[in-house]
């Protein structure tokens, strides 16, 4: 439950569930995210997402008006799906509900069942639906729920067994996913990454405006997940009855290995170990070298960051992973805060800092930026670590902000930030050290040019 002592929310440190679902659906090839609700939310979310990724983000809406809110949104939902079929040529439609349609009680699975019957003469797309009432949970829960819906609704039978790994990476950047795929290639294994926003949300310049951006996980690849050696699911926070990985495990006996978001040496080691375990292939030389370079950099840079006090905030999985990273380089995470609530936030923080910190950092769940700032006032942090919505607070506190995750609205290149694996940790470490050096230089009256 929430740790906030207040009734009101000021500058929330979370977003609503349909946004996460829409983004996850964008990571499927040929898919169009479709919000069943009023026009406004789809537009707001598009705007918000576009500001970070600087890519088109077409989210269709059933555009309910007053009449439909009273009599039900079924007709608009059906008409909307027909429209995105004909104009976008979508082969997958990802339907997410909103606070409005959940409250008026539209039964989306039933409406979709009717739809499929009514239009059975048409070449219908795959339609996946997820319930995302925005009054419960956060965008991360929307993301995970949509990912689970993709696995449970599109994977219908046991696929032939093959040397394949399912990677369920969580909400990471397109650059992170591209790097994940490189790693999987290096293991010489077939794979499904679900979902995969690496192409759609960071497109090269092309000849035309694409109605449906290429890339994303192909449906066939999703179906093949049931024949895989196993799944690796990233993210330690636990708030779902059944995730995509556990769903496949229950129905098709595909082994599911849960690891943290691989940030920092220890969490990355666990990720690579899981890969080795599933594939039987040891850590490829290239990655062993990157690990070695990372540790070498840790050694070279440790004094610059030693004992610095950091406040980490944002999405629960990312916060846990960043704490793991900061702790192992000798930065003291003094507060780990998230707008979400989950079953094991505090436990996970204890787990990732075990053996390194005498005690885990203070953890706060279900808080907003007002709560975080109030507490920060007594904590004298040296740095804030989180997405760019914390900027005004960092500014007020007079400390630098290391930008990670989503959204990055005040800097360029958010989708190309690398966070995961040895390579991602390397870029984070370099950025962190340099942020601190920059501050030191700016604050110094001498202006040393040799640090």
């Amino acid at each position, binding site marked *: 439950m929430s740790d906030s002592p207040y009734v009101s929310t000021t500058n*929330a440190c979370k977003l*609503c569930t349909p946004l996460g679902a829409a983004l996850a659906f964008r990571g499927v090839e040929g898919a169009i995210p479709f919000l069943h609700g009023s026009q406004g939310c789809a537009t707001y979310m598009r705007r918000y997402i576009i500001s970070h990724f600087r890519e088109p983000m077409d989210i269709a809406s059933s555009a309910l008006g007053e009449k439909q809110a009273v009599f039900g949104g079924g007709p608009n939902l059906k008409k909307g799906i027909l429209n995105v079929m004909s104009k976008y040529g979508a082969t997958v439609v990802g339907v997410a509900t909103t606070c409005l349609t959940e409250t008026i009680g539209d039964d989306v699975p039933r409406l979709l069942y009717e739809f499929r019957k009514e239009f059975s003469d048409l070449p219908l797309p795959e339609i996946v639906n997820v319930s995302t009432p925005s009054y419960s949970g956060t965008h991360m829960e929307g993301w995970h729920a949509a990912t689970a819906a993709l696995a449970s609704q599109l994977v219908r039978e046991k696929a032939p067994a093959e040397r394949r790994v399912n990677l369920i990476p969580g909400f990471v950047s397109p650059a992170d996913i591209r790097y994940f795929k490189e790693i999987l290639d290096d293991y010489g294994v077939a794979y499904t990454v679900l979902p995969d926003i690496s192409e759609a949300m960071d497109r090269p*310049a092309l000849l035309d405006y694409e109605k449906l951006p290429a890339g994303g996980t192909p449906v066939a690849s999703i179906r093949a997940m049931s024949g895989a050696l196993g799944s690796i699911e990233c993210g330690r926070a636990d708030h779902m009855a059944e995730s995509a990985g556990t769903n496949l495990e229950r129905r098709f006996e595909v082994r599911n290995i849960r690891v943290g978001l691989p940030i920092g040496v220890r969490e990355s080691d666990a990720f690579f170990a899981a890969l080795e375990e599933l594939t039987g292939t040891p850590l490829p030389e290239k990655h062993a070298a990157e690990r070695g370079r990372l540790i070498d950099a840790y050694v070279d840079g440790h004094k610059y960051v030693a004992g610095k006090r950091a406040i980490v905030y944002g999405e629960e999985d990312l916060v846990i992973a960043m704490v793991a990273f900061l702790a192992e380089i000798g930065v003291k995470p003094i507060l780990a805060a998230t707008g979400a609530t989950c079953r094991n936030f505090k436990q996970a923080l204890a787990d990732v800092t075990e053996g390194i910190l005498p005690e885990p950092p203070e953890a706060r769940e279900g808080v907003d930026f007002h709560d975080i700032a109030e507490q920060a006032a007594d904590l004298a942090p040296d740095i804030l670590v989180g997405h760019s*919505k914390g900027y005004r607070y960092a500014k007020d506190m007079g400390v630098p902000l290391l930008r990670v995750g989503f959204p990055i609205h005040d800097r360029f290149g958010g989708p190309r930030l690398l966070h995961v694996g040895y390579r991602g940790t390397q870029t984070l470490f370099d950025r962190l050290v340099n942020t601190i050096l920059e501050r030191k230089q700016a604050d110094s009256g001498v202006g040393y040019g040799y640090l």
Partner: protein
Amino acid sequence: MEQAIFEERRDQIHRKGEGPFELACNRDSLAGAVSQRACVFCGSRVVLYPIADALHLVHGPIGCAVYTWDIRGALSSGPELHRLSFSTDLQERDVIFGGEKKLKAALLELIERHKPNAAFVYATCIVGIIGDDVNAVCRDVAAKTGIPVIPVQSEGFKGNKREGYAAACKALFTLAGTGDTSDISPMSVNILGDFNLAGEIWIIREYFEKMGVQVVANITGDGRVADIRRCHGAGLNIVQCSGSTMELAKMMEEKFGTPFMRVSYLGIEDMADSLYAVADRFKHLDPGIVERTQKLVREELSLLLPKLKEYRKDLEGKRAAVYVGGAFKAFSLIKAFRHLGMKVVLVGSQTGTKEDYEELASICDPGTVIVDDSNPLELSKFVRELDVDLFVGGVKERPIAHKLGVGFCDHNHERKEALEGFVGMLNFAKEVHASATSPIWRFVPRREAMAKALKEQETAKRAAGGEGI
């Protein structure tokens, strides 16, 4: 190509010169069409947002509040309460048992913490459905705290942005007429429909001050509750962005007899005409005002015009597309582009009315495509077909332009560059120039392909011509 247009939307698109002008508008967005439009909540939030010493509490689940957290460029010369995002963050429990208690507690808590001069409570989609009595809670809290607590009926699904504007005007109207007007000069105005993006209202206020006109309330830009309470004492309401605040002007005329006038601060003629029109209204009180205004305009133009000429050299003949929230802005943009030697070939808005579109049709060139409530598929189709060099729009239109290798100018509520007034015209020209003439476009695949095709054509032509000799 044609496929990009939905059958149901054919009558919301018109090409000037092809048949009599008739454009369907003010309709609900089509399901599945990925409209660029927002909702009622958005409309009311836009208008009320810049009232900087009021508390703006969004009653609903978290989404609507976070997506509107400090997304606008509306500056304040003092308090900055408007830049915070307050929400009741309704949870499942509240949806089942009702959110009134939570709303009341949140209001009391926030009013205690921030001591605002008024509070606006925005009802979102779901509040309309669960039936919270927002009015009653507001009355109750107003009585307890002694400040106006004003409900804004902005349930998202109850129409489009226009209804939101109306809801906001209604909310503002409850404040007007409640303050002291004794020290207000008859030669005074209220500024409506200017949002002080990047400090624009300060530019405009300075013009009025130079003319000798008192500004009573900047109702929607750098706004203050106390000013709005006494705005009925002003001699004239000047309304820019008429879609958003016309309703308030009309209500004020009816109740307080305050006359109003539509203006625009964008572009050279519109800015000058607006100032002259205001001068004209007051010249019976102070004949000197006409001369002061002429002097002001002359001085500004003598600075501006030579600089514009520089930009025009490079921009002459380029083609622009305009897709904005309100149609009124589009009129001024068309004229502004003419000063830059550019031609507007596509123009549209999210919320234009029949009259707006008629006026648009009358000022644009034959062949110009006019659209209402468009979407990415249509916009990208037209940008391609009409061979546009520069697009003017907001965040959601930017990737459409960029993907097609087309320059872009941000002309929305998020911009950080002042585009109003004479100096604004210069900023506009600078931005248009910077984007439209950037060398990067040659690398964009579509432009590369076009350049290649052109070259091939020329070689072919030369070869054909060569044979003749």
